[in-house]
């Protein structure tokens, strides 16, 4: 057999390497999703942590719907990021069904039947947390999950709770983001000087640090009951009674009647055209109309896709900042339409109003706050 020349050997090695690289790419593509190297082929979840995105994905892989995935991921988030959300809170969901209709389920908290007289005089006069039981709204989270699960759920209700019950009971190493947040001295004090310390402090009453284990054994029990008995255990049963008792002990005013009468608000999304795009937003009192107002102003300015130069960027951000200044002046229009003028925010998506405001934006200068109707603005908050 004739011997190969050195250059032929090099070519063979080079070809072999290309084949191997192609094979690796193919394997990755198959694992991640056929043909989608930088994304997924079938379904996906984007939550605030890998753990909760994975739990949502697991539900989808078991034949669950996007709603099952979302509920499971949210329940998980209540343990991984308890500073952000939980079953003591509320949500807004936009759901697009297979025919393209978008419905909004608003189960954000509501004002209880009885609340502290002159509550608003307790509002902070400077930028700080509002702590205490007087600020508690009627939690809507579980009624909302129940409503959307009845319509769109494919997996059994209890199944959605299983992974989170395990996490809450066994515990997890302090999640990196929570650990980062709790390392700030003012957050440490906030936790250590409140009833939160019962679950977020170690046995020395010091807030949990990086290497420690975060556990919610009582929450695991509560979730187990709700998984077995449904949301009624919270709104009509023992869990609700216990919760109300604790709130009363902390000086709050919530009652069983508040829990029993909580209703999920279901309505069509507002649909707003943005050129070739249709944007479906939640109606007031959500921030949807303000978002639509800003994008409505921006859509008719020219954009340089790709890599705009510095001057083009300055111009774009200037228009954007001006649009937001006008949006700040419109924040007062966002109110619960059931309890105020039903149309108080309609102008924010009205093209003639948007065009009028766009004409008020100067190309290279800005104005005093009164120009934007931004008088006595509310404090910002950081969620």
């Amino acid at each position, binding site marked *: 057999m004739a011997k190969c020349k050195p250059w032929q050997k090099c070519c063979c090695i080079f070809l072999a390497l290309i084949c191997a690289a192609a094979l690796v790419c193919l394997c990755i593509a198959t694992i991640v999703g056929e043909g989608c190297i930088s994304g997924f*082929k079938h379904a996906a979840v984007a939550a605030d942590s890998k753990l909760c995105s994975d739990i949502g994905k697991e539900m989808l892989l078991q034949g669950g719907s996007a709603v099952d995935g979302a509920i499971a991921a949210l329940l998980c988030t209540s343990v991984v990021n308890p500073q952000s959300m939980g079953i003591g809170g509320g949500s807004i969901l936009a759901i697009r069904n297979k025919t393209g209709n978008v419905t909004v389920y608003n189960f954000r908290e509501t004002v209880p039947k009885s609340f502290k007289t002159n509550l608003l005089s307790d509002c902070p006069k400077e930028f700080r947390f509002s702590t*205490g039981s007087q600020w508690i709204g009627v939690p809507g989270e579980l009624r909302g999950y129940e409503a959307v699960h009845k319509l769109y759920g494919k997996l059994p209700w209890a199944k959605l709770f299983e992974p989170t019950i395990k996490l809450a009971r066994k515990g997890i190493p302090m999640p990196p983001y929570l650990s980062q947040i709790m390392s700030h001295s003012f957050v440490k004090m906030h936790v250590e000087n409140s009833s939160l310390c019962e*679950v977020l402090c170690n046995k020395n009453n010091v807030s949990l640090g990086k290497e420690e284990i975060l556990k919610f054994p009582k929450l695991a029990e509560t979730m187990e009951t709700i998984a077995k008995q449904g949301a009624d255990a919270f709104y009509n049963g023992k869990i609700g009674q216990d919760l109300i008792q604790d709130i009363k002990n902390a000086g709050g005013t919530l009652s069983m009647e508040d829990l029993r009468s909580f209703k999920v608000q279901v309505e069509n999304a507002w649909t707003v055209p943005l050129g070739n795009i249709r944007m479906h937003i939640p109606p007031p009192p959500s921030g949807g109309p303000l978002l639509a107002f800003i994008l409505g102003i921006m859509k008719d300015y020219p954009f340089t896709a790709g890599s705009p130069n510095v001057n083009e960027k300055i111009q774009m951000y200037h228009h954007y900042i001006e649009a937001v200044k006008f949006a700040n002046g419109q924040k007062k229009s966002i109110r619960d339409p059931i309890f105020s003028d039903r149309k108080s925010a309609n102008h924010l998506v009205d093209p003639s109003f948007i065009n009028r405001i766009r004409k008020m934006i100067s190309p290279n200068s800005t104005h005093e706050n009164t120009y934007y109707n931004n008088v006595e603005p509310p404090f*910002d908050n950081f969620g």
Partner: protein
Amino acid sequence: TTHVSVMDQNGLVVSATSTINQLFGGAVYSPRTGIILNNELADFCKRTTTLQAGERPPSSMAPTILESKSGGVLAIGGSGGSMITTAMALSIINHLWLGMSLKDAIAAPIVFVDSENQVNFEKGFNENVRDGLKAFGHKVGNWNFFLNVVNAVGTENGCISAISDNRKLGKSAGY
């Protein structure tokens, strides 16, 4: 606050924003149930009229779904209190009109216009652009808490792109 975007293989899309309002709500823990309670009524601050039972406070939360004529869908939402609107608006502008990938659109540093109309630049924001904006007369604030987070799932080139914001150390999942 947190946001979850989900797309399943049958075309159902969910954009969900959930909250207990401020950090750990009102810092009230229920020992009998293990539940941390919200402080949502604080969102009524600056209201001049009386609250009414059953009323919901105004919110920045805006779980949104966008669809293109060609059938593309994007479920997007954010957290970070007052910064939600800005974080979402700029992510949408970057993605839809500046042609950035969803990942880059969300990762790009933002400019936040606070309630006093001062502009605040996130770390990494282009300095030349910042100088240009200052020259237009915008007052610069000293906002320290860039807790803006956007999570989104969208169709991109026949695949599903799912992005969890790295600002909160998030990671998406799918198959």
